[in-house]
């Protein structure tokens, strides 16, 4: 088998994202379906207004969280497939040289879909366990009759079956596309490393500065993941602070937990991949006598600006999302507090983000220091 379950296990990042996305979507979709079933029993004006607000909130949260996390998972999956083909070019090239068709090889990549299945199933299971508490929380003011948790096969299929099948199919199709690379290029593991900037522009640039630039340029997907990690941290931490006033403490804790899991997992997986992908470069630099701090700066330093950009986008995103919720979705609901940009929350989040990010960088810098010099010669 070309790709095994062991390879799929490396896609733990996708599993976690899928788990979070399905967890949130299950809560809101199940609740929307169950509450819709007793719409006729809601007769008070306050209850109807609240019902409309809750249904709209459910749709917005499920669409935004689910959509956003699904896009991230797709990008991550495509990245993993590409990376797998790039790093296993020799094995795949030999199979192609022996006469295996692209599709015959690519069909094994369905295994990558199993990571999505695991994440979705876990997210669905956890959400189902949490549903009773969530229902109570949503109906804390007893505006609606008591709602019992129901199992909806359609939701389970939509949130577990469909993503698993779609991602497995996507992995196969994308692998088939990537395998169109000529056999010799696969065998030589020849990657397109061409610089995106002109030779003239970088001609007099010192080696370390150019290395920082080329490291970022040659692994652009990590720019996205590292920015996404900062985005999650920024958006979810700030949102959780506002949620305490706008919704409830439980909701705030839920958002904070999901945000931190996503942020840390994405950051650690990205930085691990960056270090792993540059092992030979780092080892070679140290063989030549570059200090470990120079190696760390060159390999990891280029991503720092993007993490702060991610943080800024996350701040704008959470502000826009909450503003829309408060002014449009909950427009007709009384007792909704005014919402304006929370500078204190932003400052606290930034104050937490900077040391957290720098500690993570320091940790990976230590890892670079521990890389054996002989790793360059072990091939």
């Amino acid at each position, binding site marked *: 088998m070309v790709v095994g379950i062991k390879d799929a296990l490396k896609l733990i990042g996708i599993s976690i994202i899928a788990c979070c996305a399905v967890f949130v979507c299950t809560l809101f979709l199940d609740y929307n379906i169950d509450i819709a079933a007793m719409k006729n029993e809601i007769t008070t004006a306050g209850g109807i207004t609240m019902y409309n607000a809750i249904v709209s909130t459910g749709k917005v949260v499920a669409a935004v969280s689910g959509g956003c996390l699904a896009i991230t998972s797709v990008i991550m999956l495509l990245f993993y497939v590409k990376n797998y083909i790039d790093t296993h070019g020799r094995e795949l090239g030999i199979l192609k040289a022996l006469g295996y068709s692209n599709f015959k090889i690519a069909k094994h990549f369905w295994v990558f879909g199993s990571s999505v299945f695991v994440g979705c199933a876990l997210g669905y299971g956890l959400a189902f366990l949490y549903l009773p508490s969530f229902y109570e929380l949503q109906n804390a003011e007893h505006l609606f009759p008591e709602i019992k948790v129901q199992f909806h096969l359609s939701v389970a299929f939509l949130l577990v079956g469909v993503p698993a099948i779609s991602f497995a199919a996507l992995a196969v199709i994308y692998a088939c596309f990537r395998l169109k690379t000529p056999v010799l290029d696969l065998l030589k593991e020849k990657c397109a*490393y061409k610089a995106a900037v002109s030779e003239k522009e970088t001609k007099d640039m*010192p*080696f370390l500065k*150019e290395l920082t630039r*080329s490291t970022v340029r040659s692994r652009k997907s990590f720019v996205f993941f590292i920015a996404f990690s900062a985005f999650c941290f920024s958006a979810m931490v700030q949102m959780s602070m506002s949620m305490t006033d706008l919704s409830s403490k439980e909701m705030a804790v839920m958002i904070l937990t999901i945000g931190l899991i996503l942020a840390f997992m994405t950051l650690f997986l990205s930085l691990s991949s960056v270090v792993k992908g540059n092992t030979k470069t780092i080892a*070679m630099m140290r063989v030549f*006598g570059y200090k*470990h701090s120079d190696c760390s700066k060159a390999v990891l330093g280029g991503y720092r600006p993007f993490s702060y950009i991610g943080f800024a986008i996350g701040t704008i995103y959470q502000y826009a999302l909450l503003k829309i919720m408060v002014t449009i979705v909950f427009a007709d609901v009384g007792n909704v507090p005014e919402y304006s940009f929370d500078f204190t929350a932003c400052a606290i989040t930034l104050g937490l983000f900077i040391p957290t990010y720098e500690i993570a960088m320091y940790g990976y810098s230590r890892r670079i220091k521990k890389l054996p*010099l002989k790793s*360059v010669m072990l091939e």
Partner: protein
Amino acid sequence: MISISDIEKSYGNAGNKNQVLKRISLQITDGDFVVILGASGSGKSTFLNVISGLERPDSGSVIYGTTDITKLSDGALTQFRKDNIGFIFQQYYLLPNMTVEKNVRMGADLAGNREYREMITAVGLEDKTGKYPGELSGGEQQRVSVARALAKKPKTLFLDEPTGALDEQTGRQVLDYICRLHKEYGFTIVMVTHNQNIAEMANTIIKMNSGKIAAVYTNEKQKTAYEIGW
């Protein structure tokens, strides 16, 4: 002068210990061209790694002038390599996403060498400075690796099977560049190879067998890269 005394190196744990270097002692004179010959598994690459500071021995000393590199901290050892040592490997190990020029600058910037383009010209690659390693032949890549190693102006150059991945003609060409640059700059060369013919280019030939030095010869009539057999 490099003085190597009683070097021992083993791999594996107590129950399954494999002693690769067995109390090796040797002296290498400045400016010498030393070839270490030996069959696969004789310990020659480990010996090169130890005397170049890439690996630490279990015991013994490696003294450059007055500095025992086995006693240096990791930071000091890195600084030592930066100031004194150049490497050329069989597999080139060029940075794939950097042009020829930038790969050579990797070595040059460490020594503050602004004249690094001379080294690119010296290995005959002046018209390929903007190319990436993937766009070069094996011989050209090894020449970049020669230029990169020499651009940092090392006092000692270590070569681990530099022609191992090259065909005869390209191998001769690379060795010829190394020899010419050796004569011009006067650095010390320590080369590991299993090719007996290449040894005829050296002043000193060290034969290794089972982790020990089996013989040391002095070669009075050094041949050029084009005079040796292959």
